């Protein structure tokens, strides 16, 4: 009998979709979740649920110590590809000495998987011997309802590091992954208020605004829900317009599957033009206002 260990928080429980796909019995460790989360795990067919109280933060070392006794004999371990999820996956897989595959996209056989590779610029197939840890985007395999009545236990995992403060991040309601049209901004914009140029263009087009990592992470000109790329959101709109974005592989990784790509850049040799259907070599400060006005007239807005 295959037994799959799943590590998830209440907001990443959908990783149980991968456990369902693998088939077998699921032992689900829910980190900082309560009865409601346990019940939801039951709806996705959990055989057993362990509610782990991690305290203020989920410390991988404390978590491992709290559940170590349960991990022998598991054939697969499943983790969500969140920042904490990846950290916990590395620590637990390291303790167990099992290989781990990150960014799994499909199960080809119980011991064979396909995954992203080379910073999402490649697709790899990997075969493993023995137990394996799998790290997966929470929404990659949507779980079906197959209700069970799992036994529920509780554990504590008091962190060995100390959380002394926390700051909430500004959060938007944008779902850039679902956008049909995206106007995306990069370091070619010199000041935060200049982003207005792109926002007005987006409004005329009925598009959402995306951005490169520096715009969200370094400069914080836009919230992180706008961030496109390897470490941001993966998008596949009908049209992706990259304005003042150079086209480094980590940005391309997030927009590769767009249907039509447009690039606006002053540098004729910018790599982005290699990934674009239509490239405009021009200063965005001159080009975008003109494009916006012309589109407004053409579209009758």
């Amino acid at each position, binding site marked *: 009998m295959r037994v799959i260990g799943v590590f998830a928080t209440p907001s990443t429980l959908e990783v149980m979709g991968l456990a369902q796909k693998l088939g077998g019995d699921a032992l689900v460790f829910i980190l900082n979740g309560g009865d409601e989360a346990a019940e939801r795990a039951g709806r996705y067919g959990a055989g057993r649920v362990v509610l782990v109280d991690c305290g203020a933060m989920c410390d*991988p070392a404390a978590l491992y110590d709290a559940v170590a006794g349960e991990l022998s004999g598991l054939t697969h371990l499943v983790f969500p590809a969140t920042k904490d999820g990846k950290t916990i996956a590395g620590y637990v897989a390291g303790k167990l000495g099992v*290989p781990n595959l990150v960014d799994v996209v499909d199960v080809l056989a119980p011991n064979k998987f396909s995954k992203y590779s080379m910073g*999402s610029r490649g697709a790899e197939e990997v075969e493993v011997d023995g137990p394996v840890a799998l790290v997966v985007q929470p929404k990659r395999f949507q779980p079906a309802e197959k209700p069970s009545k799992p036994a529920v236990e509780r554990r504590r995992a008091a962190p060995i*590091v100390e959380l002394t403060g926390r700051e909430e991040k500004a959060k938007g309601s944008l779902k850039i992954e679902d956008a049909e049209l995206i106007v995306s901004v990069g370091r070619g914009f010199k000041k935060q208020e200049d982003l207005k140029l792109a926002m007005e263009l987006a409004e005329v087009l009925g598009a959402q605004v995306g951005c490169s990592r520096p715009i969200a992470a370094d400069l914080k000109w836009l919230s992180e829900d706008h961030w496109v790329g390897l470490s941001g959101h993966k998008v596949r709109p009908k049209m992706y317009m990259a304005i003042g974005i150079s086209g480094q592989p980590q940005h391309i990784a997030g927009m590769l599957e767009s249907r039509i790509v447009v690039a606006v850049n002053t540098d004729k040799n910018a790599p982005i033009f290699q990934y674009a259907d239509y490239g405009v070599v021009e200063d965005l400060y001159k080009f975008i206002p003109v494009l916006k006005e*012309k589109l407004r007239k053409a579209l009758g807005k």
Partner: protein
Amino acid sequence: MNIVVLVKPALDTSNLRTAANKIMVEDTPLKISDIDRNAAEEAIRIKEKMKGGKTIAVMVSKYPPTPKRGGEAENLAREVLAMGIDEAILVIDDGLIGTDQTATAKAITEVVRKKVGQFDLVIGGEATIDGYSSQVPARIAAELGIPIITYVREISQVGSDSVVVKRDLEDEVQVVKSKLPAVITVTREINTPRIPPLLQIRMAMKKPLSKVSLGDLGLQVERRARTTDLKPLQIQRKKVLIESGTVDEKADKLIQYLSQEGVVTPR
């Protein structure tokens, strides 16, 4: 304070060589995985502030062909030595080709135990450009039995036996205090890595750089994950360049293309 920096000789993903829908790993050049430069920079800054100790870069060569990669990785080691890292140790061995992160982490752990000795911090990048798995630092912490703190955007305090850092997560920033020794990973935003002046590049030629094999580390590695296929993700693009004419003409041309593609429907 002795600081170990993890520096990966990574495949340059902006230069992936491909043939017949395969990624040709052997032909793809190496570069320092970008964020490992941030890790090196942070280590150098801490050493400068703490006035003493040593920074040691540990590198593990993972790609064939081993003889060629040895020279390439050595050049990359010189780059971090020129930045200000004191010493570099390169693990290179045919036995590491085609192994997963288990072997990488064990090799680094053994270097730390057998070649470095006393240390206070291990600093790596949040992710590498090629593997992008973010697994090795946490595995090293697991092997060494010390805390792991990932996605550090700021090191607010370093003392002789503790650090206070800010972790940059999806929804929040956490302020975390940990005992030393610990393993931390830094984000790309933590600093801007210095570009060494020529003089320092020349001086780096004299800094210690050693190569060690798995045998030197007394390590045997198992191969429990095998890559059976590795394809590039490519999408053919039209690559139409609009570069001549006035701004007006360029805009007209783009709108014409966009309506042909059905992206916009002019009235």
